[in-house]
């Protein structure tokens, strides 16, 4: 709280609606997400759960390929899955915050009558999930390097490419998450699961577990229309270096071209999410749904 206090006391931030809403909400989100009564449970959630889910795939792969984990395709699949943890966490994060405030804490009446940017508030609430998701991704990748010899060499990792692509990927996912959250604002039912449904549906079309080119060409276009496809591809290239080149997904694009496409997606999704959010908020106020409690 001390650090957040210091940041919020900076004059520019204090006077800026958006910044102070974002930072204060991020603090609140972290209090909520990390407030587990038992640290053991928190560890299970953020460490054991992602490793367990990736292990399911590892076992399936091992059975099918007779434990050929040294093949480059294994690293491709493993990293795709590890990175995909962030997709689910970010896309569901905002919807979860909307439902949490409205149905669980019942604070929407208070939050929507104070002079803050609710758009940035929701983004801020998603930050805690992003942090927990990032920790899970790092642990899962570390686990893979340790036990399955995922060929990541720190000296060979293209760090600038990884950071830029992940930054853009997160922005694009935040935009998608915001659209899901805005949709949730207009729905009377317990609809946070819409984010999970979308994240689950995208799983097959983004090259997370197999190269996009194994799909029929008409389905491939679904994947080309999703920013996650580009983020996963370029992040894998940054982490694995030449090993990632052996797979045909987006092979005709250079790293820079993919970054440009990903950047374009991020901008479009963020702008779209802002206008969709405004329209959803207006509709929710028209219908009287802002402080609705469906008692689920």
């Amino acid at each position, binding site marked *: 709280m001390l650090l957040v206090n210091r940041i919020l006391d900076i004059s520019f931030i204090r006077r800026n609606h958006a910044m102070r809403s974002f930072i204060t909400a991020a603090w609140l989100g972290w209090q909520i997400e990390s407030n587990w009564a038992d640290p053991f449970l928190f560890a299970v959630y953020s460490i054991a759960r992602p490793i367990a889910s990736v292990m399911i795939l590892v076992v399936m792969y091992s059975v099918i390929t007779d434990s050929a984990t040294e093949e480059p395709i294994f690293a491709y699949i493993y990293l795709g899955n590890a990175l995909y943890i962030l997709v689910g966490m970010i896309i569901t994060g905002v919807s979860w915050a909307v439902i949490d405030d409205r149905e669980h804490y019942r604070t929407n009446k208070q939050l929507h009558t104070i002079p803050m940017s609710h758009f940035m508030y929701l983004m801020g609430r998603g930050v805690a999930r992003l942090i927990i998701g990032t920790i899970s991704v790092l642990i899962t990748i570390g686990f893979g390097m340790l036990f399955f010899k995922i060929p990541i060499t720190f000296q060979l990792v293209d760090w600038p490419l990884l950071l830029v692509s992940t930054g853009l990927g997160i922005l694009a996912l935040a935009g998608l998450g915001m659209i899901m959250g805005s949709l949730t604002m207009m729905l009377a039912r317990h609809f946070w699961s819409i984010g999970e449904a979308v994240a689950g549906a995208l799983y097959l079309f983004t090259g997370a577990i197999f190269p996009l080119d194994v799909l029929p060409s008409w389905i491939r276009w679904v994947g080309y229309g999703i920013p996650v496809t580009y983020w996963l591809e370029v992040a894998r290239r940054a982490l694995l270096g030449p090993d990632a080149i052996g797979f045909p997904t987006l092979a005709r694009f250079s790293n820079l071209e993919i970054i440009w496409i990903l950047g374009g997606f991020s901008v479009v999704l963020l702008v779209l999410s802002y206008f969709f959010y405004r329209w959803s908020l207006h509709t929710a*106020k*028209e219908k009287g749904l802002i402080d609705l409690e469906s008692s689920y």
Partner: protein
Amino acid sequence: MVENNLAVHTEDVMRIYKLRGPKRKEDPREIIALDEVSLDIRRGELFGLLGPNGAGKTTLIKILATLLLPTSGTAYVNGKNVATEMREIRHEISMVSGGETSGYGLLTVEENLWMFARFYGLESKAARLRIDHLLEVVGIADRKRTKISDLSTGLRQKMNFVRGFISDPKIVFLDEPTLGLDVSAAREVRAFIMNWMGDHPESTILLTTHYMAEADELCDRLAIIDKGKLLAVDSPRNLKHRLNQDVVFQLTVEPLGPRPSREEMIESIPGVRQVTVTEVAEGTVLQLILQADEILSDVLAHLTRRGSSLIALEKREATLEDVFIDLVGRGLDVDTSHTAEDRDE
């Protein structure tokens, strides 16, 4: 153009809710929550909205607090339009609802208030000072580090009060502020409201309540609202003065024959202006507004003929509830939500 001295100004505000039934194909039912409400509240007033549950009080407050859009009509808060100048309005208002169990239970009282102070853009030092002062005023300074989930309803309500006043708002909306509180906590809340108004004579409070005594005690002026319509707007004194020429009796009877009927008494006994009939454990209570004392004998004769025996009789001063009865023909304790407001009924 809204007059400068008005904290709230509404013109023909309507709010219609559309309720869908279980079958998607059915047309939604329309419920009129507010019916062409036009109201002016002056700056510095403690203004009350008095009405039964479901009368439209909370709907009006939600519209003024920018939580809900009117279906038609316009509303201004401090001269700003609730539909187009929401952010500007939110700098000047706050809202506290009674009976709320809301709040981030995992935060302490101090953390929760700090968070809201930060959303308002208060500096940390100023926020801390204001939080400490207000917690002291409402008497829960010793609970500063208690988690909200561990607070009783009364203490949580007091914390919500501090939250509502932390930003030094120009206009405060208090929606049933003493709902669910015990007698002493309700008294403390009322005292806080009075003191705050004394310290902030330029500020305005709009308070909704269905407790007539609360409205009578606190409000400079009040509006009586029922089924979404404003029935009267005046000071409590002037409202009661409307019944000055009348007399008010409360009778408790034991109906051995048929239960006394309101309609029958009004129709058959000249001079009976209003009657409400309520069943209680002791018998049937009749609240009567009569044009003169002498009419009571006719009422008693009527009841005797109908087989009722008198248990208790009291003549009393007119209250705001009598004004309400006089205006609508029933008491304040009747929940009218989702009944007669239905347009299609």
